């Protein structure tokens, strides 16, 4: 039912929404495209917010996916500062926060995810922050500098990136993590231990197994973080990075199938053929692992934007991808390919003490995932090996003197 003249309405102007709008034009879509965004900015890259942007090494121009004039030139009606508040699928209408309504032929939900807030006393104090949007990053930037004390709640990737940037800016940084190790939900112990020690060398302090029970304040501004053991750690600002929740309420209220995310098929189509969902909000099939899940990453947003653009313009769906993501901290580049599902063996290649090593996750003799620190060859070849399901010689894989090209033979 592809119709190049249909009116496509995209709810959400993040990486997924912005990429889809541009790709639809690239694929020859001639009908109207409307993109609704609840931020004041045109689509921009979020990854630098915790890295280059926070350190003042990137500006709004480098952050933007496309210059603002692109949208007018490409005849994309980009409408900022506006939210979708109601979805009436039977009438193919979306109600917007300014009281107006918009009709669609095809609707794409690219509403993303939002930072999870801690339901604890003091969470509304000035200086208790999140890092999700450019405005969040701007507010955080003002609170981080020489002599400032920054508490990072949550030892995940966002928290660690903020800690590294905070140290680069001369702030004192303490990271508080509820689990007894960093990156507990997403990485192996080898990696957790490596990051802890690397950050400590750069002056970050850690409180592991620490349960944050409240924020203390004075005159409405945060002064400290209170732990379950009664201690209060003094700080000038706190960043809460404890995960994100998909913005799937609009879909759920309209009766679309959701499962902590909007359920879609391999074309990014929801249970309603006129409605797609892409990016952080989508709960999507991943045939490589024989399951469905939700991913929060730029490569996933790009991939699903492509899936939806292909389906809307009548092109065949793109071949299944090997998901990947990256993180930069200090002079470390972490590149991750795949997800560590159904893993029965972990092989560490290289010595973590050198700051250059990789962790391979296997099912039998097939690769499920690789986490590579300053090891681009392991990442690039690992990504191919995950995709082609090659049976590996584990002894060769574990030996860094055997090149990755040889491992893949």
């Amino acid at each position, binding site marked *: 039912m592809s119709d190049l003249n249909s009116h496509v309405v995209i709810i959400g102007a993040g990486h997924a929404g912005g990429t889809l709008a541009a790709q639809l034009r690239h694929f020859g879509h001639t009908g109207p495209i409307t993109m609704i965004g609840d931020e004041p900015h045109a689509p921009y890259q979020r990854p630098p917010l915790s890295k280059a942007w926070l350190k003042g090494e990137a500006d709004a121009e*480098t952050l933007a996916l496309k*210059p603002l004039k692109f949208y007018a030139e490409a005849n994309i009606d980009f409408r900022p500062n506006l939210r979708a508040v109601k979805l009436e699928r039977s009438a193919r209408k979306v109600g917007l926060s300014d009281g107006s309504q918009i009709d669609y032929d095809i609707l794409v939900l690219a509403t993303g995810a939002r930072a999870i807030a801690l339901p604890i006393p003091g969470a509304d104090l000035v200086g208790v922050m999140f890092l999700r949007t450019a405005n969040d990053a701007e507010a955080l930037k003002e609170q981080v500098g020489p002599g400032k004390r920054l508490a990072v709640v949550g030892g995940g990737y966002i928290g660690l990136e903020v800690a590294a940037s905070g140290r680069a800016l001369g702030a004192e940084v303490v990271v508080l993590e509820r689990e007894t190790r960093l990156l507990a939900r997403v990485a192996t112990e080898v990696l957790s231990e490596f990051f802890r020690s690397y950050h400590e060398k750069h002056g970050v302090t850690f409180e592991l197994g620490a349960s944050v029970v409240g924020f203390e304040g004075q005159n409405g501004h945060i002064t400290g973080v209170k732990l379950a053991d009664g201690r209060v750690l003094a700080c000038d600002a706190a960043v809460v990075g404890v995960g994100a929740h998909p913005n799937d309420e609009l879909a759920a209220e309209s009766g679309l199938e959701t499962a902590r995310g909007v359920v879609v098929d391999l074309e990014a189509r929801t249970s309603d053929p006129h409605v797609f969902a892409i990016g952080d909000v989508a709960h999507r099939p991943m045939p490589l692992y024989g399951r469905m899940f939700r991913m929060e990453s730029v490569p996933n947003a790009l991939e699903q934007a492509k899936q939806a653009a292909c389906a809307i313009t009548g092109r065949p769906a793109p071949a299944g991808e090997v998901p*990947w993501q*990256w993180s930069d901290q200090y002079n470390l580049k972490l590149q991750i390919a795949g997800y560590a599902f159904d893993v029965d063996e972990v092989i560490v290649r290289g010595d973590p003490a050198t700051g250059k090593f990789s962790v391979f996750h296997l099912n039998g003799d097939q690769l499920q995932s690789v986490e590579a620190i300053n090891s681009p060859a392991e990442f*690039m070849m690992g990504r191919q090996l995950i995709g082609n399901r090659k049976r590996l010689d584990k002894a060769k894989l574990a030996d860094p003197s055997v090149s990755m090209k040889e491992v893949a033979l």
Partner: protein
Amino acid sequence: MAKITYIQFDGSETTLDVKPGLTVMEGAVKNNLPGIDADCGGACACATCHVFVDEAWTAKTGEKSAMEESMLDFAENVQPNSRLSCQIKVTEELDGLVVRLPESQH
């Protein structure tokens, strides 16, 4: 401004004015030029902004870092003049630069 000419795999040429300080990749992406994907936005993490630098310009575009070299090693159809365009910072000295794009970035 530096004029940079991007030549697509099919031979079509586009010359763009790129502001010094941006990268050769950003010059293309921000002007909606197809052929350079740059999935990671310039973090040297994905190798989808591969270009071939015109032979006359290879010295001026500088040396590859070890990271860039390793990433390129796994890209398709790599040549000695292959570069990741997110790692080439545009300067006034690069006014007139010519880069050729590969058939595909994936």
